């Protein structure tokens, strides 16, 4: 079958998709976007987490056909996604805790073209930078899914308590870090956003 959907602000089309293929498989093997990871392929580890119309989902559990005509954001588009949100919601966005990106906003958003130039760290989203700075990355296999999930948490709840962070990230397994530095990273990203208000 043929599947059309938007990934990171760009229309993508995939042909000859077998009906049993997951969104994760199509992203990784047909669209050249292997950033979303394949650690368990049964919805337990969260390493394949993407935003589907704004909602964090395990892309391994979403059939590719279900995504027809919809909007997907992966780790590869997270920096641009966050930059766009920052423009749409100056500062940290809304203090109400309900400032998620609407489908309408997501559809108006377009990724910047990617060049070959060396990436400057300034082009990372705040949560990506915080993961590096806090030492939250070791092997890095859980990182893409955690970044998408943590970014969505901070979008909903700019000042999460530790218990909030643990609850929001409980669907993302990490085997390297003992999670302490991941907590640090989310706290750091939240604190930095608070400073810019």
């Amino acid at each position, binding site marked *: 079958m043929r599947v059309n959907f938007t990934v990171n602000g760009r229309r993508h089309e995939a042909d000859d998709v077998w009906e049993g293929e997951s969104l994760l498989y199509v992203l990784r093997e047909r669209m*050249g976007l292997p950033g979303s990871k394949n650690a368990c*392929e049964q919805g337990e580890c969260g390493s394949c987490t993407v935003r589907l119309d704004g909602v964090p989902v395990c892309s391994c559990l979403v059939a590719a056909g279900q995504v027809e005509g919809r909007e997907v954001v992966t780790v590869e588009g997270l920096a641009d996604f966050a930059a766009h949100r920052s423009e749409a919601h100056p500062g940290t966005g809304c203090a109400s805790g309900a400032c998620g990106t609407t489908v309408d906003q997501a559809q108006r958003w377009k990724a910047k073209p990617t060049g070959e130039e060396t*990436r400057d760290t300034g082009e*990372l989203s705040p949560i990506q930078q915080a993961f590096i700075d806090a030492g939250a990355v070791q092997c890095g*296999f859980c990182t893409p899914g955690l970044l998408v999930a943590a970014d969505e948490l901070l979008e909903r709840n700019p000042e999460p308590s530790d218990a909030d962070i643990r609850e929001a990230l409980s669907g993302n397994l990490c085997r390297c*870090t003992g999670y302490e530095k991941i*907590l640090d990273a989310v706290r750091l990203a939240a604190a930095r956003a608070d400073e810019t208000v």
Partner: protein
Amino acid sequence: MGVTGSPTNINQGTRTKGGIGESTLRPDGILKVTGEFAYSSDMWHEDMLWGHTLRSTVAHAEIVSIDTSEALATSGVYAVLTYDDLPTAVKNYGLEIQDTPVLAHGRVRHHGEPVALVAADHPETARRAAAKIRIDYRELPVVTDEASATAPGAPLLHEGRDDHHIGHVPHPNIVHRQPIVRGDAEAAKARADVVVSGEYVFGMQDQAFLGPESGLAVPSEDGGVDLYVATQWLHSDLRQIAPVLGLPEDKVRMTLSGVGGAFGGREDLSMQIHACLLALRTGKPVKIVYNRFESFFGHVHRHPAKLWYEHGATRDGKLTHMKCRIVLDGGAYASASPAVVGNASSLAVGPYVIDDVDIEAVALYTNNPPCGAMRGFGAVQACFAYEAQMDKVAAELGMDPVEFRQLNAMEQGTLLPTGQVVDSPAPVAELLRRVKARPLPPERQWESAGEHPDVRALPGGLSNTTHGEGVVRGIGYAVGLKNVGFSEGFDDYSTARVRMEVIGGEPVATVHTAMAEVGQGGVTVHAQIARTELGVSQVTIRPADTAVGSAGSTSASRQTYVTGGAVKNSCEAVREQVLEIGRRKFGTYHPAWATAELLLEGGKVVTDGGEVLADLADVLEDEAVDVELEWRHRPTEAFDLRTGQGNGHVQYSFAAHRAVVEVDTELGLVKVIELACAQDVGKALNPLSVLGQIQGGTLQGMGIAVMEEIIVDPKTAKVRNPSFTDYLLPTILDTPTIPVDVLELADDHAPYGLRGIGEAPTLSSTPAVLAAIRNATGLELNRTPVRPEHLTGT
């Protein structure tokens, strides 16, 4: 070459000095947070095929027949391979003993053993074709424990063994046996006022690295193969792969792809030979990626163990003697079992002074899943048992468990049961003091949220199973002893190639090793060492491959010590050559070139007094200095097979934990509130990475204390929970705060005084949690992991 995702150089410059001791950031960090870092499962090649492995559905059987005709006839299938298709007389591989079949030959010895391979144009096509392979098994009786493995008439796992352990084992189903005897334990027992013994059971733990076994094999025009793979030791893989393929080692070119964690589980081969066989057969690139179910069968696990210990002590609290017997289940193939036995026996005493010991450790061959390396490697199982014993002896004496440990703690100069003297700092008592002195976390934290309890702070968490009723707190302590580096006389060297040249007017160092970066941060440390030794800011880390000499394994807490030592050594050689060039060019201009101690700092040649003699750019101009050298730590010795005597280890590593738990005694649910660690690291080359290692190791130790276990059916030897749904890993909700206290007491034998750190925290974490649960419940709890039924008696 058409390969997408092949690793490239990583360049890193810093605005600070960026040398050792600083928490410089990972050079691969940006790639990892943007999703661009290519892991072995991300590799892609136009025209590539997908490989799939058909595995045995039974644990022990004769293969009567294999019919691949229907699978071969499936549209989209390019090859189906069985044992009969192996190209050379070498059909087995193994880390130490070549007992593991590449594909089963007439018999399978464990559940999930590879029997056939399929290559097809879509992974699902390969899976479905594999399902059409008809295998007629005639099941054989299974051996699953020491009693069944050594019973009269027990089926032998490997008949006609000719490995170098067969001469000293009491039964052919025992892989290796290592006794360690010192003093006279029986005579010393007579002096004991109290004698305490116990039997302990340690469950089978999985490494559960998140990046599945995977890689891409690309056939080349010269008849060889390029293999991109995630492993812990490229050259060990190469040594095992090439003979099976019938290729010289230089025609199997291996490159390390991104590795999604390892923890010992990638020491043995998994899909490497299989992908190469399919690629060479089809003439096409072949990618293999295990799913999680297959991953549980695709790598060895931590040895489950049964341990019996006896300790005696005098009334004033001094240990008199120790006897123990440790039985490790190695499963169907040897893997790292002999070395695990060496560790379990030589570290069985723990970090205590006991002059009279009688120790025996064995590893079995059974039809259970093969077991081998996992973080802590034989020392973990022993620590669980001897620390339980320490608490029991202290209780028997009416002493405080920490004071009792401190009274018997080893220190620098202690003679170990192997006869080896501990010749660097061993701050065991101090580590215990530090975790004990830490303030305790507040009681009843779930009430801090206000009127309604925050159930997230309670056992059971969001399941909302209690609001504090039946919840009791317990505190437990433990400390452990781990070796660093490969032991028992192994030639444990590493190789580093370092190049220095001027690019764009700036001196740049390039570091090339075959070290497997598996997440630990070795690449960060290599760049730091190059900056410290060569005075540069810009460092390029080349991808790890077999074009450079072996770096040894990313195991045994050894890489910063050994490959770090090799990088330091090669940098020193580069520095000498650079200074020689400088003397040649500029020596006549300043007497200090001949007389002073010269350093490279900030891109310049400076005297130890700080006087600048020349810019490195002017010294080197368009010359490059390029050095590749092997480096070795001081040698070790084998343990005597009868007495266990020998200077077997390179270095020792120590960590202590205090666990605070809260237990819902009605439902048997445990919440670990805090797991504080103190560890001596010698010298923290990168403090941020050190903390990450200690916290990660601590949590893996907690996992085997309260949830992680591969369940193997004792009747069928089949694995019952090969998935992340059924094999439970700690989530961030299950995880306590992990405060860490780092000591830096230099080991003068090691580069920069550093101490290998990765494994020690995995040892003491488990027994500390168990001790805390015992403290909370009053239960004996002689097995780990603890499950709810062990706490409720249901």
